[in-house]
């Protein structure tokens, strides 16, 4: 091989390597990006667009104009207002109550207790099991005539409650089930927040003779504040999507459609082939979630110890 040939060959190899270096990342990203673009990015913008399309037909992908008609319809509908109220009450109760219970339980679990494996299994099982399946067990627990909850309440002299078929009670049943199923996830997040607190703070406080109540409110709570903020946000978002629980407990949105939730409303419009209405309702849900997330990030930035 002459010197000239060798140099030319090296140049070719170097160019190939350069080209490959440029293509390689694209090759690694291709399967991921294709899937995400088709099933996450495109759907998002498409739904935003769809929510403004009047008289939209999904199968032919045609509409009769662009406007705010879908939003007017959704915001004017009784079911959607009902859904907003129910979802609002559900979130307003489930999120703080499960956070408060989780703070107590996580503090207990954070002590050196024996039988941790058993406690972990007991506390965290509801998180991994299908809401539909355990919800059915709850439906049986809530039954008016043969339910075990009414039996236990009866021991304390409470009369039988129609948990599943009477409006405000059905919402309370949904809330109880919601707290129970949200608790494990909340405990785990708070527990990992607790474990990230530097042990030195406690040692110093104890050396200074601080009482445990004082330690809890002066050290644990402030240092846990960012975690609590995160938990409240994540839970607000996930609780505002309450849906499959309705099928498990009531086979639908409660007696006479009294227990609509936002996502159930979306599903209902969707199955009635009113896709643009579903899109508008989904947009409203998204905007609400977006506001909550922004609010949390704003507070988080303002409120760092």
């Amino acid at each position, binding site marked *: 091989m002459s010197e000239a040939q060798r140099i030319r060959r090296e140049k070719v190899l170097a160019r190939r390597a350069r080209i490959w270096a440029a293509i390689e990342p694209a090759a690694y990203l291709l399967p991921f990006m294709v899937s995400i673009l088709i099933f996450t990015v495109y759907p998002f913008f498409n739904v935003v667009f769809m929510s403004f399309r009047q008289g939209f037909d999904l199968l032919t992908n045609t509409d009769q104009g662009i406007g705010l008609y879908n939003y007017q319809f959704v915001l004017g509908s009784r079911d959607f207002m009902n859904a907003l109220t129910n979802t609002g009450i559900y979130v307003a109760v489930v999120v703080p109550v499960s956070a408060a219970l989780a703070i107590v339980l996580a503090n207990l679990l954070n002590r050196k207790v024996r039988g941790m494996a058993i406690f972990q299994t007991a506390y965290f*099982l509801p998180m991994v099991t299908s809401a*539909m399946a355990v919800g059915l067990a709850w439906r049986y627990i809530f039954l008016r005539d*043969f339910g075990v909850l009414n039996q236990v309440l009866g021991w304390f002299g409470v009369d039988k409650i129609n948990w599943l078929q009477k409006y405000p009670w059905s919402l309370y049943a949904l809330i109880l089930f919601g707290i129970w199923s949200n608790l494990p996830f909340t405990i785990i997040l708070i527990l990992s927040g607790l474990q990230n607190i530097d042990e030195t703070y406690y040692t110093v406080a104890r050396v200074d003779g601080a009482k445990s109540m004082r330690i809890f409110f002066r050290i644990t709570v402030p240092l846990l504040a960012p975690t609590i903020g995160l938990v409240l946000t994540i839970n607000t978002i996930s609780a505002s999507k309450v849906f499959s629980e309705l099928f498990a407990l009531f086979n639908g949105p409660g007696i006479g459609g009294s227990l609509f939730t936002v996502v159930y409303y979306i599903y209902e419009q969707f199955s009635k082939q009113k896709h643009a209405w579903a*899109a508008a309702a989904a947009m409203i849900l998204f905007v609400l979630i977006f506001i909550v997330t922004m609010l949390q990030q704003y507070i988080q930035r303002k409120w760092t110890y």
Partner: protein
Amino acid sequence: MHTKHRLRLGAAMMLLAVATFFVCAVLVLYANATTPRGPLPEGTVLMDKTPFKWGMALSVVLFGAGFALNHTHTARARIARSATYALLIFGAVLMVFPFYWMFSTAFKTPRETNVFPPQWLPSTLSLDNFHEAFRKAPFARYFVNSVIITTLSVLATGITTILASFAFSRLKFPGRDILFTLLLSMMMVPFEMLVITNYQTIVSWGLRDSLPALFVPFLASIFYTYILRNFFLSVPDGLYWSARVDGAGNWKYLWKIMVPIARPALVTIMLLNAITSWNSFMWPMMIIESTHNRTLPYGLQVFTTEAGTQFNLLMAASTVVILPIILLFLFARKQILRGVARGGLKG
């Protein structure tokens, strides 16, 4: 009195108080439980609860007196410890109860499910309800579908996640970090919003009411990629360059070195994905129509409309749905919990 005796007396009083309180409380609850509802028949003698209520009040006083005699550091620590366990056990019982209720009802006879007060233990341990449920609805088929969908989804997402995480952490290309940030912001979009278009896409591909429709939209995940990318970023650069010097290309480095190192993170991702996929409910309900394409949770929902109030059958079917995940959780508890602590399993 000698200090030692005072402490012993205090401890004994506290123990006695706890025992008395417990016994009296149980007796009061028993009295309530056995009191018939409605108008009482002539000549019924009700159990008198008053002495037990007094007993409860007295035991509180006794406990206070005992604590006054023995409020040493050890006694306080013991009380705090017992209270911790008592609260934890009480909570654990409440959390586990629905599962116990499901499993025990799965063995009850139809008659035993419709009585008041409810029967807390089944009289037999026969598998009749499971046979009956499997006869009334094709749960075996649902089960196979769920296994297929979960496996395919976990494997496919695993591969796309590994490749993308590697590109986002190790490879260099213009706009990499901006692109990644934009993708992360998409995580805020609720899944419920995307399904409307995804339905449209799947229908236009002619995949409606087919098994592929159940996993094709879930071949990649931004969240799992985010977790794995962070793990990859924590691997020191030196490893990469020494592998390159030894002649390993990116591909070889990724599969021979990075993937084995990242095994814990990968296992966590796959477990979370398996759980989410197994439990997925809304999407199958939207896209599937035929019986033979249903997955377990959706099949269970349809079964509730068929089996109505036969809770022995419903609970047997529910048991079949959750048992695989419970087993998975028992075997891989630590990995799953580690993943959840990073915010997995939730939108």
